[in-house]
């Protein structure tokens, strides 16, 4: 009890410490700033290491057709059409979370002359996107790519999404950018579709490229 009282007294009562009336020298002030900066640098270095460790963690998605690795912290689910979707619920834009969707469909036909079945499927796919998405713009179509050791085409596009309208709350629409990687296996078309807002796009593009690079075809089950 007595000890507690002494400790409390030490904390609350002034002591005759001469440093209390002696301002620091300029050198001491410079050192204090230097140590503060070093402390900040150490904290940020540890934070950077934490970020690298966390970002290297992935989760595996697998369905009968293919498997891929996506960031472990993303939320996995399905969209209205039953396609697998992985969403980053922490993305910069709170109104439209960046997402990657895995779509399997029968290879569509555009009815237009095309260099290959894949190019024809890409044309038909772009057409269907333009009808489904508001203010759709096809930004580029890049061929000569490979996904899961299969020839692939990437369709880059942008459209205007109105995510708050579905919630019944009026809000400002957002411009969304997307890249769809298409490849064919037999008569089956597989699409790895990535979408994010303009603000998220530059960082998301790298994540999408990593996910696409991780795609592997699953062997067909024995008959």
């Amino acid at each position, binding site marked *: 009890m007595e000890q507690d009282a002494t400790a409390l007294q030490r904390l609350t009562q002034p002591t005759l410490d001469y440093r209390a009336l*002696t301002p620091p020298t300029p050198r*001491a002030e410079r050192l204090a700033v230097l140590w503060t900066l070093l402390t900040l640098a150490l904290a940020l270095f540890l934070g950077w290491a*934490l970020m690298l460790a966390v970002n290297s963690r992935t989760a595996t998605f697998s369905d009968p057709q293919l498997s891929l690795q996506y960031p472990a912290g993303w939320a996995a689910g399905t969209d209205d059409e039953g396609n697998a979707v992985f969403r980053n619920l922490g993305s910069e834009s709170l109104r439209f979370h960046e997402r990657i969707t895995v779509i399997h469909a029968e290879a569509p036909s555009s009815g237009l002359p095309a260099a290959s079945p894949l190019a024809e499927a890409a044309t038909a796919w772009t057409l269907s996107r333009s009808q489904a998405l508001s203010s759709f713009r096809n930004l580029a179509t890049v061929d000569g790519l490979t996904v899961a050791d299969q020839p692939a085409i990437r369709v880059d596009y942008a459209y205007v999404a109105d995510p708050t309208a579905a919630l019944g709350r009026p809000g400002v629409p957002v411009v969304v950018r997307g890249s769809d990687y298409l490849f064919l296996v037999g008569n089956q078309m597989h699409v790895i579709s990535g979408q994010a807002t303009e603000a998220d796009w530059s960082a998301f593009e790298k994540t999408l490229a990593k996910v696409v690079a991780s795609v592997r075809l699953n062997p067909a089950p024995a008959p």
Partner: protein
Amino acid sequence: MSVDATKVAHNRFGLWTSSLLLVLGLVGLTALFYFLAVEFPAQLTGLLLVAAGLVLALVPALLWLAFFYLQDRFEPEPKHHVLGVFVLGGLLAAAVGQPVVRELFRVQDWMTQAWWVNLLASVLIVGFVQEFLKLAAVRFSIYHSSEFDERVDGVIYGVAAGLGYATVLNFGYVLDHGGVDLGVGSMVVVVNALAHASFAGITGYFLGQAKFETTPAYWLPLGLTIAAALNGLFFFLEDLVTQQGMRFTPQYGVVLAAAFALGILTVVFFLIRRANAETLAIARYREQQQAAVAGAASEV
């Protein structure tokens, strides 16, 4: 070299009363806004909603400045200096803090993966960056001015920098959400303001000591680390108490922020009072010593 003890040890009670009024005023204001939002749902949409949100984001800073101005009128701190540090805090948040946290580290992409990741990232990245910038807003501006002549000035300018920082975060919140409704929006704004002002009060206390006393080399880093740790811990706890599954209950965040702010400002108040008493005691002791020496000399 020594300092003017009575000046350094001058305590500005206007600061403490205005800070207490700010905490009480903001809690009362959120209760009022919440009531209004429930009873009279606003019909604001689009740009009007955004404009209302931006005005709302400014309320805490305006309230504190108004309270401080009224409380401090008999012993005034130059208001343009206080306002200048407030603006500098905001500018550093917009130009450095947010880009580093959200674009360089992109913490929003990965910090929610596990509770321990969230806590560590909140302290090591968000906490340290935010608290360092608030400290820098004072240390590299008003700190060397002759206006920074009292120990408690560190807290005054620290709180101003913290409110500036919070105001920019609140602007970002409003713009990200395309405007905010009065009830939830006011609570988020108040939580940010109370939290950032009180954490900056801690670094302000450490700065005030460092300016007028010979402190050990670890003194400022210690202040920064304590403020960063409390910052990270607070926002981690705030997430825990406000997000329960799909339910968002921001009112718990307001209670937590008010408790943190009151607790921190009370501790800082007593620390400053103790340091001031120490300064005055030493000054008196020195005077007595000098008088004794002078008396002895005259006798000789």
